[in-house]
């Protein structure tokens, strides 16, 4: 028992920060990230017998953490949030409407090509401003390219719900870009 608890302490020492950074990247909230790391270590203790010495502790702990992160978001996605449905109705009106004849109302943007530094900063700001459910999908699907089916299964949501959220995410990002003066991405 003592050996195992010492091992756990050592793992916390060696991998704690790394796990914390990973969690923070996904949830963007330090206190949630801390809780997730704590839960991970408690869970690791409970399933110590499943760990084979010689394997990478880091990878094993990461696996547990990923699971806990999914659990966290799964709970979020399952909460019936009536605001969401209201949002959906409103935002579906924003860009769709009369097709613009002729020149239309496209705002001419002479600075469409932004310095990449500025663009990166804005991208980061806008993504971090997304509601956490949408931000997570951005990271998991848009950035990491995890398969839609896998994500739906892990998060306990239907394909339809997934597509609705992704669409909303894309629109919210675009609104945010526009607010920062970016009309077109290049």
């Amino acid at each position: 028992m003592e050996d195992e608890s010492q091992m756990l302490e050592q793992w916390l020492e060696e991998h704690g920060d790394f796990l914390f950074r990973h969690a923070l990247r996904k949830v963007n909230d330090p206190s949630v990230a801390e809780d997730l790391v704590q839960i991970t270590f408690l869970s690791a203790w409970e399933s110590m017998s499943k760990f084979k010495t010689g394997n990478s502790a880091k990878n094993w702990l990461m696996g547990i953490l990923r699971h806990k992160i999914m659990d966290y978001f799964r709970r979020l996605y399952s909460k019936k949030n009536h605001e969401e449905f209201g949002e959906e109705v409103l935002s579906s009106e924003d860009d769709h409407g009369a097709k613009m004849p002729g020149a239309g109302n496209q705002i001419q943007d002479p600075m469409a090509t932004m310095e990449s530094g500025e663009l990166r900063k804005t991208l980061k700001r806008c993504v971090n401003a997304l509601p956490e459910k949408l931000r997570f999908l951005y990271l998991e699907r848009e950035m990491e390219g995890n398969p839609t089916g896998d994500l739906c299964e892990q998060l306990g949501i239907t394909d339809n719900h997934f597509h609705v959220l992704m669409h909303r995410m894309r629109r919210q990002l675009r609104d945010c870009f526009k607010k920062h003066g970016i009309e077109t991405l290049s």
Partner: protein
Amino acid sequence: MLNCEETGRLLSQGMDRHLQFWEKAGLRIHLKMCRKCSQFRNYILKLKELTQREGPTLFEPEEEKLSDEVHSRILDAVHKHISSGEAENHSQKPT
């Protein structure tokens, strides 16, 4: 005939699933006639491109560490967990 709302939805879905032949055909027709939707299409394609190019280096909280306080808190929680588990085990040991 697709309207703009349906088009926007389909375009977004097309990034995350395969579209059927007839869906693609409907999109093509609408996009030919609608600049706004064409712009949206360009935008979501560019967003993906930008994300995959910049994303991996952009969201790393590089310098973040577990504070000492949190470090000890986790250690304490784990120890408490361990000792409560051991207490149970001890009480279950046959005499």
